[in-house]
């Protein structure tokens, strides 16, 4: 194929050469945006709709099934937005937590010399990676969790926790003087950070190793325990109790009820994202030079020590960027909650609120902006981390 040199004979006058394409691009962009804005205004005027964010403070008039903060229908749409956002963050955090653990375990299993284990891990990865997430969510929610029994015949865990089609009921922790425990945990964490930095400095200077891990774990376990016994903190449990409301309707009162929508969503997200994280972990560990492992073995380190001291730190450099990408994908995938009845940001705000107020443009824009902000924050962190650990090449 012939490609002409599209220089327009302007090589000599490089100023125009650089301004022309840019000016053209700018013009096209402005034109497109103006076109859209003009039409939007015109359409809205024709229909008698006004563009504005006044709905934000209006009363919402609808209730939300599950909310981490105080909310009922008399609160504003703005507060409903906050409830949805918190629910999204909740399911994302839970999903990331379990996905990471499962992903690391499966990733390492995949590299195990044990044939059965590695094949098992491989089958798991291949199955759950190749089925769409929406289908997995549907399966867990509509097929699996719907098959659970009614509260009357709930699946019983030692009489303190019950699994039913209406949710998983667990005892509620009732603390008094919770702040004391909280501060002790914070203090222990800060102390362990200090210990780690000190230990690292010591190692760099003198080569002596302080068992920082044991000291800090000891601190983190003992300090709160001490605070618990001495500081006057009490822990009570509120157990879920089966109440008969009518001849066949039973419900649990008390305790915390985790709704099946949340369980299904968190389960599906974790299982799905764990496959990707497992592949990242595997790529990371395999990406460490074999010479490193052999050198470490040759100086007498046990396989466990090799993994912990030599392989993992180098593997982490390869593992973390794609894993952070998966952490980015998980909140975005959690927006699928709109398909089952989990009240996350999309269902509450871009669903109910949008339908009741009719303000499609404003609400969809705000929702997109929220997710965009979240991903930009995580992206920025990833870029910073990448720069920090990058091997400076020529």
């Amino acid at each position, binding site marked *: 194929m012939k490609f002409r040199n599209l220089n327009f004979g302007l090589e000599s006058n490089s100023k125009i050469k650089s301004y022309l394409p840019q000016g053209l691009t700018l013009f096209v962009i402005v034109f497109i945006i103006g076109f859209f804005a003009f039409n939007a205004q015109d359409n809205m005027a024709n229909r008698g709709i006004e563009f504005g964010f006044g709905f934000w403070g209006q009363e919402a008039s609808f209730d939300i099934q599950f909310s981490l903060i105080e909310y009922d229908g008399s609160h504003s749409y703005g507060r409903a937005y906050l409830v949805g956002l918190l629910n999204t963050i909740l399911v994302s955090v839970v999903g990331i937590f379990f996905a990471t653990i499962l992903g690391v375990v499966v990733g390492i299993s995949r590299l195990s010399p044990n044939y059965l284990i590695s094949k098992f891990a491989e089958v798991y990865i291949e199955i759950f990676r190749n089925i769409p997430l929406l289908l997995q969510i549907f399966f867990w929610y509509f097929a699996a969790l719907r098959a659970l029994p009614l509260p009357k015949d709930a699946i019983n865990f030692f009489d303190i926790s019950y699994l039913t089609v209406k949710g998983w009921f667990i005892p509620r922790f009732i603390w008094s003087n919770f702040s004391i425990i909280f501060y002790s945990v914070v203090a222990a964490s800060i102390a362990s950070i200090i210990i780690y930095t000190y230990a690292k400095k010591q190692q760099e200077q003198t080569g002596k190793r302080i068992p920082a891990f044991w000291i800090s774990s000891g601190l983190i376990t003992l300090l709160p325990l001490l605070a618990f016994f001495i500081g006057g903190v009490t822990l009570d449990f509120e157990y879920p109790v089966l109440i008969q409301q009518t*001849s*066949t309707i039973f419900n649990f009162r008390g305790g915390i009820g985790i709704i099946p929508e949340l369980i299904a969503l968190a389960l599906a997200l974790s299982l799905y994202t764990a496959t990707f994280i497992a592949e990242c972990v595997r790529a990371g560990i395999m990406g460490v030079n074999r010479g490193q492992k052999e050198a470490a073995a040759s100086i007498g380190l046990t396989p466990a020590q090799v993994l912990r001291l030599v392989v993992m730190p180098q593997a982490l450099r390869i593992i973390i960027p794609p894993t952070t990408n998966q952490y980015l994908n998980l909140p975005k995938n959690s927006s699928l909650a709109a398909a089952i009845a989990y009240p996350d940001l999309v269902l509450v705000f871009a669903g109910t609120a949008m339908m009741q107020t009719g303000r499609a443009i404003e609400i969809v824009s705000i929702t997109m902006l929220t997710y965009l902000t979240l991903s930009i924050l995580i992206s920025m962190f990833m870029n910073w981390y990448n720069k920090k650990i990058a091997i400076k090449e020529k």
Partner: protein
Amino acid sequence: MLKMIRNFVLFLSAVLLLAACGQQGGSGKKSKTLSNTKKAGFVKCGVSQGLPGFSNADESGNWSGVDVDVCRAVAAAVLGDSEKVKYFPLSAKERFTALTSGEIDVLSRNTTWTLSRDADIGLTFVGVNFYDGQGFMVRKNSGIKSTSQFQSGLSACVNIGTTTELNMRDFFNSKGIKYEPVVFEKADEVVAAYDSGRCDTYTTDKSGLAAQRTKMKNPDDHIVLPETISKEPLGPVVRQGDAVWEDIVRWSLNVMIEAEEYGVTSSNADSMKDSENPAIKRLVGSEGELGAAFGLDNDWSLRIIQQVGNYGESYKRNIADTGILPTRGPNQLWTKGGILYVPPAR
């Protein structure tokens, strides 16, 4: 290079021209929707995703129901054949945006007429084809016979973005009952959740409750509680800004009701042409020039009555005979104790 600039300028002007051409709104006797419908050859009708009695498709894809009959009436009036309709099943979420975006021209989907919908989102309600109210459904063996027996901790399944969601809150609040709303997007999912036991009660318009009950595994296991907690006037909706189209849809519905008032049915409409009653003569088009007001020919109302029937026939065919709601309730003529009272077609 100059060629490029010239082409670009031409392209720009073409786009601007197109944009400018699109600015004509519907005004006077010129109705964009009417001319588009005539050109396409069918009426674009938004319906539900399957509600027996109102809009439901059988295995061969034939739609029937009182909402469907409204669209068929419009098609009979405008295009001469009530079968010239394309049905678009819509969920509660997309029904309004489908209408405002132009994907459909009439929304006949058991939609409640409320102030905010009429005034705030660019739509116009053109009438009521079913007066209804919101109710609750529970299992027969739960022992609940009335909503006064509801207790806190109840879980209620509901459809997202409906007046039901809001009314439910008002009702439970007034009774001080703490409830758990489980909202789904598709009505079928709501029913399935209720049927499986996920929710203790299912709430929507009473006609919807009766209709959905026929789709459950064991319809006799469920009862609809007697209390009605809100007013739900259901009717067809059109876009704001096309006055002629609005009138066409409004009067297609009114003609059906008035036909029943004067006893004109699909079978005797032809013979009524020689009636003594001038009102009847106007209805069947043998007197007056009513059609010209919309840009239609004079047989528009006759075609509606002949091909779709009057309101009573439509109700009987779709709702009474199928066992959903055997009695008319408030949906009876004002002369017979109901509240169907429409302006005269003259």
